[in-house]
């Protein structure tokens, strides 16, 4: 896009790459090295850039002594399930908004999107009794349902935006062959919509994955806790300030999703390209 043949443009390009890259990646490096240092080296006024002596003790104790893997499993289950539900709901709602016309279509959509500005903490106050009356308090399904709050509107909008671009000719042609609307949607539209659906799934997933507020409140039992509050309550709390452990645990819980994203990122960017931004 830009012409980088001149020297000055090369310098500017390289300079910016280094500066922004440093900001993005150095903290990750710092997390990794901190996790590998022993306590004596970690708690120094002047930190060492490379660990002098590499120790895995923080990792072992994170796995052995805490419920890290339980938290991780819970987070994967709740985030995965809520992202799935969210995506399914958003697929139909998005298609409905994009391809059908009925009274209130526009206002409903606008209202849904605006609702994304309702403070989550406020909704939580009233969600709590709702979950209680459904018997879902302190359960994973309760948390999964609550997580719909986070991303349903935006997910719906993204898919609406994508489906709007699916040419009507495609649908009309299929209809001329006598196919029903739902059939057309399931057999013709959905198969060509995989990247945006993946994008929406990941977007929803990240909201739940990051959650601290809801899980902190709706979950009381240790064995159902997710990573956000789990990490906070294990490593930096009333009785503890274990930075090495916190860094090691952080690294461990991040790993599965980071690896998954390495594979999915291509789809993710494709999906964004195809959908939400036209």
């Amino acid at each position: 896009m830009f012409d980088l043949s001149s020297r000055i443009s090369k310098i500017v390009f390289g300079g910016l790459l280094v500066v922004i890259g440093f900001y993005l990646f150095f903290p990750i490096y710092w997390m990794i090295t901190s996790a590998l240092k022993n306590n004596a080296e970690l708690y120094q006024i002047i930190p060492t850039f490379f660990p002098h002596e590499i120790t895995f003790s923080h990792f072992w104790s994170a796995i052995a002594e805490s419920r890290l893997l339980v938290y991780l499993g819970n987070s994967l289950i709740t985030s995965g399930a809520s992202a799935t539900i969210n995506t399914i709901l958003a697929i139909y709602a998005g298609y409905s908004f994009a391809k059908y016309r009925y009274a209130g279509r526009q206002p409903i959509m606008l209202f849904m999107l605006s609702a994304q500005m309702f403070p989550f903490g406020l909704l939580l106050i009233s969600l709590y009794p709702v979950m209680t009356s459904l018997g879902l308090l302190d359960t994973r399904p309760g948390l999964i349902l609550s997580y719909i709050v986070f991303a349903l509107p935006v997910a719906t909008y993204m898919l609406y935006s994508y489906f709007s671009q699916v040419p009507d000719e495609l649908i009309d042609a299929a209809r001329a062959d006598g196919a029903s609307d739902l059939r057309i949607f399931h057999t013709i539209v959905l198969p060509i919509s995989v990247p945006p659906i993946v994008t929406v799934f990941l977007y929803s997933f990240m909201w739940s994955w990051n959650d601290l507020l809801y899980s902190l409140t709706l979950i009381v039992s240790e064995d159902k806790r997710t990573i956000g509050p789990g990490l906070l309550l294990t490593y930096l709390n009333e009785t503890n300030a274990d930075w090495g452990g916190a860094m090691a645990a952080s690294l461990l819980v991040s790993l599965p999703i980071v690896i998954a994203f390495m594979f999915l990122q291509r789809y993710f960017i494709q999906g964004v390209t195809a959908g939400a931004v036209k």
Partner: protein
Amino acid sequence: MKHVKGLMGTALAVAMLGIGAAQAADVSWMGYSYAEESAKPSVDKIIAGFTSKTGKTVEPIASAFGDLQKNLLLRVRSHTQPDVVQISERWLPSFASLPGLVDYNTVFGADNLAKIYAPEALAMGQVDGKQLALPLMSGSIGMVANNAVLQQAGITEMPKTTDEFKKDLIAIRDKVPNSVPYAMATKNNSDILVDFQTWEYAFGADIIDANGKVVVDSDASKKALGFLVDLMKERLIAPEIGRPDARRLVGQSAAAFYLDAPQSRTFLRSFSGKGKDFDVNIKPMQVPVANAGQEPTSIQWAHLIIAFQQSNPPTKDDANMQFVAWLGDDAVETQFPVEQSALPGTISARANPIVADDAYLSAWAKNNTNPKRNEVGIWSNSGELTDILAEEVQAALLGQKSADDAITSMGARMKESMIKAGHAQ
């Protein structure tokens, strides 16, 4: 399509039932010790003991200390309260109005309870003449010194007055590089509350009197806060330190003094990485006072047990009342508190050699003879009061306000909060 949806709905419902089904135990016990990795085995032991004695089952519900108040209140609001709850003594007043709370006097009889529990520990569970809580363990929040650091700074005697204290802190700052001489709590509102209150008492000041009148706006308070601001200016205390940070600093001999409950020993053992070998360095001491001859004070501290009635009216035969009685049994009381480095709440357990011969516990008791009530924590609006106090103290320590202004503003804001909570000023 319809089939798919139907299937999904069924699957979801089944999953909810499966996961959501509550285990039906005879007693549910919510507490924070169960959330602490080090205390968990002890809690399991208590429960196993109860089950083998009575054949009744207990379901422990872990809740982190900082989270328990919120969790309990949310559960009460949604009518899913646990049967028995372990609480910190300072939360009791804010829980006192919860519906269904058991007055133990009506179940066990006040006279009987007085025979079992140590008077000052029992008193902490009383609100308006009702015995709403019983002590699981008790003690006070007092000052702890790290002897290794004191030696390094050439200090041989514990400071008695605030002047001596400051002189010692300066010696530590100069002789122990990169140390925080006094690891005062300067972050986390509830931690700041305890530290500031201790110094208020040391300067003869009070925050709120027994009738709920805010009296913090006094010269003594201004002196107390001024003293702390001065320590900050001299780099004798440091910002951004909460209780856990303080424990780590003292455990690693990078700080000489801090305030904590007797559980301090358990934490310092673990944070120093030396276990019981570190005990020689842990010295409970009296909180220094502003004027020589003044009686040193500490702050009352206890883990209490409250219960929600299982039958109306509650009787001794209710499973949860049996469990509460079990918690006062020697089998529990000579073990759990000692493992947590705290005094048991019962008279007989305190007389037991396991407790009586523990040098640390007796040193603690000797140095903290005059524990005062937490003047802020006991009000129902303590959450707001704590936030106000901590914000003003922080503002003064960080140099955003003068100590005098901070105290004046603290007084005004606390008054407003107390009026709102129904206490005329």
